[in-house]
């Protein structure tokens, strides 16, 4: 087969494939559409650049059409082949290298350029060399892409700091905590330090989408922050990956780092969310975190901002909260379930499920009357958690709790959801809270309950969700509708309840 010239290859293999060709989406690489025409080119043919040659001047062209157009210039008869729709078949190509997996027509690649590059990369000679480092490439475009980034960040210490110069890297490395054998402390502060940070003014705020999760993140972190304790967040030490995707990390916050405890879920999700969360994480007004003494968490501030109430900052984030947070619903386990079983928080509560809309509306009203008049703060989502770092699991998960339940409730109610939340949410500026409300309705509703929710506490959360959420709102107290009549107390009790995580726990259940 390797010697076969261009031919409409046999379709013999098509019948053997069992691919259900139902979806009209792009096939995965190497899993061709069974109806496709398999073409096997020889290496020579594959690598040939100009297969169509003008007979007059011997100029070569990559495509037949181009040759025909060229022939016009010689006053030769020319004819442009029309693409005939009823006959057209997708063409897939196999790799001529026998030992290659893509030699099998069942794993043919659908793109001629793709197969060419593949052949060169895997089976070809690497002719392009990088000047600065030792990398070599067979495909010119790969090489060019590498040259763009090579040399811009050359050295990275284990602690995550990047260096442009070798001597600074070596000196740093020699004394870096990361090299110290016994160290497990959060010197991971450096994870956040990006090369050149010290000398450049803090970059402008990230795009709204990146700003989103920081308040969320900070909830958990602020929960434990004052004592620099491990955050449940548990970003891996390999949040070097994290830090590299962070372009603006100027804050060396303990949150980012303290987690030398690895959480694979976190890392995976960070990577999968392609830096949105990562950047959020970094950009996190981890300024908040830098000031652990600030009682309302940044999350609550966000919510305050969205509610248009007294808190400062974060309006951009409120906007973004809706957009990106919910859009990237899949890598949701940003907050991996902690080692302690979070389920106990969500655990069955006896209260009947409330309609999500109703709950939110009521909660909004509560929020309006509460001293801390942000809606979600009224919901208790604001963590006055700084008060109780010791109950990490509790605070972390409970704060995360509410949105998760909220989400799961969102999933219950598709149609009747109304964005208007009542007086507690002045509709100023931020499409803020409205979007927050709308957000789930649009994107999360399509999620199955088992999908990880907003804060990724999914599994446990969604199982017990309806009950949990109402229980949660129960603890908030005041103003909820009939089902929530059991939700007693006024807002003030909410505040109290939230001040003490153990209470939180009990009231939830």
């Amino acid at each position, binding site marked *: 087969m390797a010697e076969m010239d261009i031919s409409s290859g046999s379709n013999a293999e098509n019948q053997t494939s069992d691919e259900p060709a139902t979806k009209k989406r792009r096939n995965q690489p190497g899993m061709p559409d069974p109806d496709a025409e398999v073409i096997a080119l020889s290496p020579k043919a594959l690598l040939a650049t100009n297969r169509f040659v003008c007979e007059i001047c011997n100029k070569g062209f990559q495509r037949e059409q181009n040759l025909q157009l060229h022939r016009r210039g010689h006053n030769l008869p020319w004819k442009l082949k029309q693409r005939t729709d009823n006959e057209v078949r997708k063409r897939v190509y196999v790799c001529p290298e026998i030992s290659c997996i893509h030699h099998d027509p069942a794993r043919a690649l659908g793109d001629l350029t793709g197969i060419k590059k593949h052949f060169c990369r895997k089976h070809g000679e690497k002719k392009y060399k990088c000047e600065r480092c030792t990398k070599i490439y067979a495909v010119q475009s790969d090489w060019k892409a590498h040259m763009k980034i090579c040399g811009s960040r050359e050295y990275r210490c284990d602690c995550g700091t990047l260096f442009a110069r070798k*001597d600074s890297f070596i000196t740093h490395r020699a*004394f870096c905590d990361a090299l110290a054998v016994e160290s497990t402390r959060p010197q991971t502060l450096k994870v956040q330090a990006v090369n050149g940070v010290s000398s450049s003014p803090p970059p402008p705020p990230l795009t709204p989408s990146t700003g989103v999760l920081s308040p969320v993140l900070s909830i958990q972190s602020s929960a434990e922050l004052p004592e620099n304790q491990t955050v449940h967040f548990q970003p891996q030490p390999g949040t070097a990956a994290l830090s590299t995707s962070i372009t603006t990390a100027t804050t060396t916050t303990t949150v980012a780092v303290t987690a030398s405890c690895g959480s694979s879920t976190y890392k995976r999700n960070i990577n999968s969310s392609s830096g949105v969360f990562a950047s959020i994480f970094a950009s996190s007004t981890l300024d908040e975190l830098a000031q652990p003494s600030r009682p309302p968490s940044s999350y609550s501030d966000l919510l305050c901002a969205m509610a248009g109430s007294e808190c400062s900052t974060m309006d951009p984030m409120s906007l973004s909260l809706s957009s990106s947070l919910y859009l990237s619903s899949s890598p949701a386990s940003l907050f991996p379930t902690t080692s302690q079983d979070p389920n106990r928080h969500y655990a069955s509560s006896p209260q009947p499920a409330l309609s999500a809309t109703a709950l939110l509306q009521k909660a909004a009203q509560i929020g309006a009357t509460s001293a801390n008049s942000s809606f979600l703060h009224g919901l208790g989502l604001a963590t006055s958690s700084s008060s109780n770092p010791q109950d990490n699991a509790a605070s972390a998960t409970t704060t995360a709790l509410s949105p998760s339940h909220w989400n799961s409730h969102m999933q219950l109610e598709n149609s009747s959801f109304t964005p208007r939340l009542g007086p507690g949410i002045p509709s100023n500026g931020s499409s803020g809270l409205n979007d927050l409300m709308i957000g789930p309705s649009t994107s999360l509703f399509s999620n199955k309950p088992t999908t990880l929710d907003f804060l990724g506490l999914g599994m446990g959360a969604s199982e017990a969700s309806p009950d949990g959420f109402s229980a949660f709102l129960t603890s908030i107290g005041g103003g909820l509708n009939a089902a929530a009549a059991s939700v007693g107390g006024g807002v003030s009790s909410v505040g109290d309840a939230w001040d003490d995580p153990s209470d939180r726990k009990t009231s939830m259940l």
Partner: protein
Amino acid sequence: MKAELRGNSSSISLQNPSLFNTTQSSISGALKECVGSLDGACIEKLLLHFASALESNDVTLAQQVMWVLNNVASSIGDPNQRLASWFLRALISRAARVSPPTINFDGRSALQRRLMTVTELAGYVDLIPWHRFGFCASNSIIFKAIQGFPRVHILDFSITHCMQWPTLIDALAKRPEGPPSLRISVPSWRPPVHPLLNVSSEEVCQRLTNFAKFKDVPFEINVFEVPPLSTMDAGISQLGSSDLYDLFLNQLNPSTLELRDDEALVINCQNWLRYMPDEQKGSTSHDTSCRDAFLEIIKDLSPCIVTVVDEDCDLGTLSLASRITTCFNYLWIPFDAFETFLPKNSPQRIEYEADIGHKIENIIGFEGIQRIERLESGINLSKRMANKGFQSVPFCEETVKEVKILLDEHASGWGMKKDDDDMLVLTWKGHNSIYATAWVPCSYGVEY
């Protein structure tokens, strides 16, 4: 502007007495000049006025100048203003000691302890080539000099807490013939100047050891004691006694240093010599200063190479007024360099400038043994070394190339001059800042 001033500075101080005319008219004249443009020349003149006021005990003049300077100086302005603010502090501090103090400035509290972590220090030495230049040049020379020796012992006299060595260790690890056995000795005492660390020298040694182990370089490091001052906490007042230096010098003998015969001895003086007092101890020419004594001692240790890196400025014995001028014109360099790299209100920059401010305070505010910053230019040092029986080791092409590469990686204001092959000088916008030289005792018979 600055270049011209440098040339004129000595003439101003020595030949232009009218500058020290302490009448009202000169002050208002100075003020008038300054109104138009608050440049370095202005500030320099004001500082000179102040100095002369101090010298002549003219309180009124001093107050006037201080008032003007206070309006000019700003710790977050442009480099000249920033520098001026530190000068003002130093002068006030000095004045406070001259006249009954209204502000509580004493020598000791001036040295606010800004302690850095090791990693911060690693960053500090690499921000600008001020230190890295010396490291690079010295390491390159040392690397060449120890070729062929299986065991090497480095006596490290420096103020940067062994920041120089990781790159040498790395280079040695990569040698085709493998690394030699490396041993480093550091004194337990160092001048009480910045940069200061928040960890002990043992910790630093430990980290360096870890690093060397990681790089598979046989390594040993120890701190040799200089009793009774075994820590860096020696305050300026303690330096008031020349006994300290005698004690220090006494420690520099083969047995305390545990010199071994089969080792190549390297002596690295990096930003060190200027802290060795240069006052003649006795009246006869037979009595040498501490600095000279130091040089003699190290010569007698038969090192295979001595590297000397220091700041290229003469601030040793001049009168106050000329010291002010010279110092102003010299320390403008790092201030200007910071201006290029760091934003105006960067806390890092303010810290670095404060460090230099302490230096200024010492240079201007103190006399005699308490003035520990006794800078000597490269040229004068070269004469001194020659007098003491050293011959210079020229820099080879490779070293020069390495340093050039280093400087290329920094901003374009940094450059390098080579004076007759013997001395490399780091320049900022053409002004000499740091010199690097290498020496061997004349009796040492190795060809380079």
